[in-house]
């Protein structure tokens, strides 16, 4: 408690803050608070950790963009005082892909839920990981579709009840870290909402990482998942995290299966370096531009192109089957053809 200005005296610690207020207030849209998340939900913690990671990392707020889909977690982009986009259901990653490729200097973060990213946007998730786009994907897994009314999600553990499975879910749930890592993600981690310090560190690592980062955050859903299954409130789930989670860095994500009970394997499972899609794309663009400028120079009047054509023509006639498509290769500006175009230019240099 603040000994100088106790506002209410005996209770202690419940005085209103000074002029600076909560340290997260400057990165949150406080005009939209209180948020819609239920008491005992871990989404506020995840957003708090994300905001703290952004502040500690020192990223320019103008160089950071948050994209989210639909659902409880989809509200996160709207509560952060950053450039944010609230996209259609499941399409957060395609939107982020466009944003990233149009402006590769931006750090694009996708914060969305398990239903949004793994069910409706499941294909986008695996293909973004396969392409190794330079994105950070934070998937908050609460085992159910929360906002739409508690339907079964692909992450609902076997046997658990939901509005669309009143006698228990029959399906085996997704193991999201395994899905992401086998699709090619370069940083794969999982934390629960209790591991706030580790979560902040992994977020910071992901912001600096070049490649596709996938972070699963396991969060309680007290109203629709836990109450329907008589598991208690959000605090009960947090106590389960405390007793059941097993930190194992570098573990094989194959082992990270989640059940309704039993151990929850957490940690940073994968951290690799791989060429990103943006690197390959911009390399190709610069190669093509270079080839185009070479062609333009050749096409100038008084340039070397007529002599080149003259020197090339007999060769092409002489061995048509060995080099069947030299002209087309030239047009597309491929590597070997550039070399071929360079050789006659040397041969026809003035004596």
């Amino acid at each position: 408690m603040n000994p100088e200005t106790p506002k209410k005296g005996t209770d202690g610690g419940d005085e209103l803050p000074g002029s600076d207020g909560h340290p997260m207030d400057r990165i949150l849209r406080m005009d939209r608070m209180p948020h819609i998340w239920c008491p005992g939900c871990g989404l506020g913690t995840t957003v708090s950790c994300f905001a703290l990671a952004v502040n500690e990392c020192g990223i320019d707020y103008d160089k950071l963009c948050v994209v989210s889909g639909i659902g409880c977690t989809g509200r996160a982009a709207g509560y952060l005082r950053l450039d944010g986009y609230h996209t259609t259901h499941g399409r957060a990653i395609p939107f982020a892909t466009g944003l990233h490729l149009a402006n590769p200097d931006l750090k694009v973060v996708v914060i969305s839920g398990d239903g949004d990213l793994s069910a409706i946007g499941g294909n986008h998730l695996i293909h973004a990981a396969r392409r190794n786009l330079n994105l950070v994907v934070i998937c908050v897994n609460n085992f159910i579709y929360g906002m739409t009314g508690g339907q079964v999600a692909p992450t609902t553990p076997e046997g658990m009840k939901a509005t669309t499975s009143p006698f228990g879910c029959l399906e085996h749930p997704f193991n999201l870290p395994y899905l992401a890592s086998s699709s090619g993600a370069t940083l794969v981690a999982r934390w629960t909402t209790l591991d706030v310090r580790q979560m902040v560190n992994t977020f910071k690592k992901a912001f600096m990482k070049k490649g596709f980062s996938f972070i699963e955050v396991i969060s309680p859903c007290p109203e629709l998942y836990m109450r329907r299954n008589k598991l208690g409130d959000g605090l009960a789930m947090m106590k389960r995290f405390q007793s059941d989670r097993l930190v194992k860095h570098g573990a094989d994500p194959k082992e990270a299966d989640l059940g309704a009970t039993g151990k929850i394997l957490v940690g940073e499972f994968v951290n690799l370096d791989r060429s990103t899609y943006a690197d390959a794309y911009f390399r190709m663009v610069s190669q093509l531009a270079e080839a185009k400028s070479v062609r333009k120079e050749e096409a100038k009047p008084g340039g070397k192109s007529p002599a080149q054509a003259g020197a090339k023509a007999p060769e092409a006639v002489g061995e048509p089957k060995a080099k069947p498509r030299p002209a087309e290769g030239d047009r597309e500006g491929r590597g070997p053809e550039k070399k071929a175009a360079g050789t006659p230019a040397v041969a026809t240099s003035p004596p």
Partner: protein
Amino acid sequence: MDSGYPEKLTMQMDGTPQAESPQFWRKPIDEGKAPKLVGVVLMIPERCKGCGWCVEFCPRKVLVISERFNIKGYHYPRVAKPEECVDCRLCERLCPEFAIYLKRSPAQGGS
């Protein structure tokens, strides 16, 4: 599969409390030399939704649930043992409502 981590770095830790697994907790090498930090817990009670996480997971049990209600009708936490706080900021990071935060004690350079 190759995860990029050497096998030696894998570490296991379960969440059992200190009393039950004393072998895991080691004595800090700078014990007695490093100053003990003192934090000041500040709260914005009208934001609280009474989830109780800060009270449950505070490692020094600084907070307890207050008997008062806030404007939303939830019992918010209050500071029971202010001298116990070591400025670990776990409650600040755990709070889903952005309702609790810490400052370093004025005696240790806090504002």
